[in-house]
């Protein structure tokens, strides 16, 4: 899933400083699962914004709503009849949500309330880690299911660098050296020789380097 993090309240309050009536709009997709943009977070943010503005002597009317997803036009269309009633809409979806909303309602103001961080998962309750860099050409089968593109700080594909120390990366003692894990896993399964194969230079055109990407599934298109 896409993992996001909360923006600071002063930053959000600054974004909506000229608005009297706003909609705080959550998303039931990834941001609900990573506890940053679901119904509960909508209620918390709405309450915090009301408190912040009331303290400054400037009331803001805040409505709360959540969409099934903000990254599908059919769900975005569900607020069509009321979106223009607001001075601004604060979206708690990942960066995709406010963009779909902006495209659907060009006359409205949309403000992002979260910072989108990475593709990852929950390793424990309340802790999420990056697992995928969305490079567009998955090669993790070569590394026993561990991705050196997303999880090595340098995205190295042919073994660890000199910064690997006791299984940790030199940039932070909390970060695992994924190459240490790959080598250990290969050793445990007796397949260390697999790593003698030199991985070719990666074609990064399938990643962001090739510009904004698009996927078309012909059998679904009209």
């Amino acid at each position, binding site marked *: 899933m896409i993992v996001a993090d909360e923006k*600071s*309240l*002063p930053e959000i309050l600054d974004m909506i*400083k*000229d*608005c*009297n009536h706003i909609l705080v709009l959550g998303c039931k997709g990834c941001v609900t699962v990573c506890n940053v943009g679901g119904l*509960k977070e909508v*209620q*918390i943010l709405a*309450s*915090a914004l*009301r*408190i*912040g503005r*009331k*303290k*400054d*002597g*400037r*009331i803001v009317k805040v409505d709360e709503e959540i969409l099934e997803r903000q990254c599908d036009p059919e769900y975005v269309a569900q607020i069509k009849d009321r979106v223009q009633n607001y*001075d*601004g809409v604060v979206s708690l979806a990942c960066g995709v949500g406010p963009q779909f909303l902006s495209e659907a309602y060009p*006359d*409205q*103001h949309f403000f992002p309330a979260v910072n989108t961080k990475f593709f990852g998962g929950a390793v424990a309750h309340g802790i999420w880690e990056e697992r995928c860099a969305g490079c567009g050409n998955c090669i993790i089968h070569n590394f026993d299911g561990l991705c050196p593109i997303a999880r090595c700080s340098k995205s190295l594909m042919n073994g660890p660098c000199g910064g690997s120390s006791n299984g940790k990366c030199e940039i932070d003692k909390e970060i695992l050296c994924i190459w240490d894990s790959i080598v250990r896993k290969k050793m445990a399964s007796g397949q260390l020789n697999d790593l003698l194969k030199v991985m070719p230079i990666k074609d990064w055109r399938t990643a962001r380097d090739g510009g904004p990407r698009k996927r078309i599934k012909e059998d679904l298109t009209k």
Partner: protein
Amino acid sequence: MTTDNFEPKILAFCCKYCAYAAADLAGSMRLSYPSNVKVIQVPCTGRVDITYLLRAIEDGADGVYVAGCLEGECHFLAGNLRTKKRVKYVKKVLADLKIEPERVEMFNLSSAMGPRFAEIANEMTDRIKKLGPSPIKNNDQCKEVKHDCSR
């Protein structure tokens, strides 16, 4: 309202198994505590959500506290520990909004600690009296900003 005659409104979320029972005991012991404190019984402090605390502040409470079992003695194992983190979160929200985070607090006590219940109520009332009225309440009559959403 001057701070001299300021009588704060304080909300206390009290766990049925400890703080609420301690309040009963305080009553049986004829211990007095300030009438500023309004008690809400909850089945466990783990039931207290972040939104409850924020809504209390939003709706004009000068202070809010949660009183749960002693750490390690929650009847539902970890309800009080979970809410301790929620109280910490709300304190951060208030601090971000430049409101005194001390207006929200977490306390732990057992059902046998009637005098401690009264002590907490006194402590919280004194604290809020020193802080003064909630800046939210002061602005109940605040005006809407002039609409200026340039698009």
